[in-house]
Every structure is written in structure tokens, then in C-alpha cells.
């Protein structure tokens, strides 16, 4: 995998969620994703940055684009020092929610993207990594 480009958006206030969406829209477009895939990536980015803001108050979204052979892809990593997730398997199950939300954040984002990894420690924070491949 060759790294092409990278950057980050700090999530400190509600308006940063929209900022993250805008940044990811531009990146996905530039990489050559179609409108349906772009909408999926942007929607996932919105939910995951919302989780950061809602549960941890602040955090960061790091993005990178890469190529692997013929394929291009984008990776988004959301990191916070919030309360963490006690049971990650439970958290990605349908209908799960602890924050009075709709319980669609993690399982929904997983469906919108190709790959998802969650690394979380209670009391330390959470790191959610998602990837989507641009197959042309």
C-alpha cells in the first residue's frame, strides 16, 4: 500500500462535524469515487465524527488516501480520549446505543464502508478506523 495523501480535521465543536464532512467529500471526489460511494463515505464520516463529539467531547479525524495495485482507497481514523467502549462487539451490533442516540452510528458506518476496526479501552479512549476502496 502506497500512501498518497493525508490530513486531519480536529473535532472540538458541533460545527466541526460539518467541516469533517466537507473535507471528506472533497477527498472522495478527488480520488474518483462515484456519487453514491461519496455520499456513503461522507455519511459515515458524519456519524463517526458525531460519535467523537457526542461521547468524548473532542477528538480528531485523520484521513489518508492510498493506492494498492490498481485500487485506490481512503482510510478515516477517528480518535478520542473519551470514556471508551466496554464491549466493542456489542457496540457494532444492530440497535445498540448508550448515548440516547439512534444506535446506528457504528453498525451503520460499518455498512457504509468496506472495512472497520475499533480499538477501545474503557477510561482511555476509542479509535475507529474505516476504509473504502475505489474500484474502477
Amino acid at each position: 500500500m502506497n500512501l498518497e495523501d493525508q490530513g486531519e480535521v480536529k473535532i472540538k465543536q458541533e460545527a466541526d462535524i460539518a467541516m469533517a464532512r466537507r473535507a471528506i467529500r472533497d477527498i472522495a471526489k478527488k480520488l474518483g469515487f462515484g456519487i453514491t460511494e461519496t455520499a456513503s463515505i461522507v455519511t459515515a464520516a458524519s456519524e463517526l465524527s458525531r460519535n467523537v463529539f457526542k461521547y468524548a467531547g473532542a477528538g480528531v479525524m485523520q484521513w489518508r488516501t492510498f493506492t494498492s495495485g490498481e485500487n485506490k482507497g481512503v482510510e478515516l481514523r477517528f480518535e478520542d480520549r473519551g470514556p471508551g467502549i466496554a464491549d466493542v462487539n456489542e457496540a457494532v451490533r444492530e440497535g445498540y446505543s448508550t448515548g440516547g442516540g439512534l444506535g446506528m452510528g457504528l453498525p451503520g458506518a460499518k455498512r457504509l464502508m468496506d472495512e472497520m476496526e475499533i480499538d477501545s479501552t474503557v477510561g482511555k479512549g476509542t479509535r475507529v478506523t474505516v476504509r473504502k476502496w475505489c474500484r474502477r
Partner: protein
Amino acid sequence: MEVPILKQGSYLIATVQGALTDADLLELRAALLERVVRMRSQGVILDLTALDVMDSFASRTIREIADMIRLRGAATVIVGIQPEVAFAMVQLGLTLEEVTTALDLEEGLAYLNQKSKEARI
């Protein structure tokens, strides 16, 4: 980005012009409810043609708008949800089932006209 709200007869038409922050959505909710009350509107069309993404917060706020307007005795129709937005929404599990949707402004107006005709009978 502020959402302009136009009055057309006994209806209101709110046309989203582009990306909306959470604050924009809450402002739209307050502005629409205030206008529905002040103008004694019978129906509201919310045109989302220009909206590029609908996440859980946007979806919940739109459902709340429709609920509040319904409790006031008026009807709401959401029009113009783009196919890629609909695709992402369903993947996310957001179906807006309780809210009436229509293809475009014309269909939305036809729905409201039909609804007020039924109410008169």
C-alpha cells in the same frame, strides 16, 4: 446556511440550498414552526434536492419538524431526496417512515392539494 421559507397560498415551501450544520437544522425547525403558526399554514414542503448528506441528526430533526407541524394540524412533505442520499440513509438504517415523501416540488404540492381536498369533504 439559512434556509429560505416562501409562502405559497396556505402552504410554506422551505428550500435547502446546500450543506446544513446541526445548528442550521435546529434553526430551520424553529423558523418553520414559527411560520406555520403565524401564517396558519395548512401544509409545508421541505425541498431537500440540494442536500448532499443526511445523517442521524438531520434525519431525527426532520422527523421532529414533521411531528411538530402535524400536531399543529398541518401536513409536511419532504421532496427531492437525491438517490445517493437515500442509498446512504437506508444503509445507515434511517428510513423516515413516518414522514411523507414525494419526488419533487410538483408532486409535493399535488399531495398537499389532495390532502386539503379530502379534509374539506
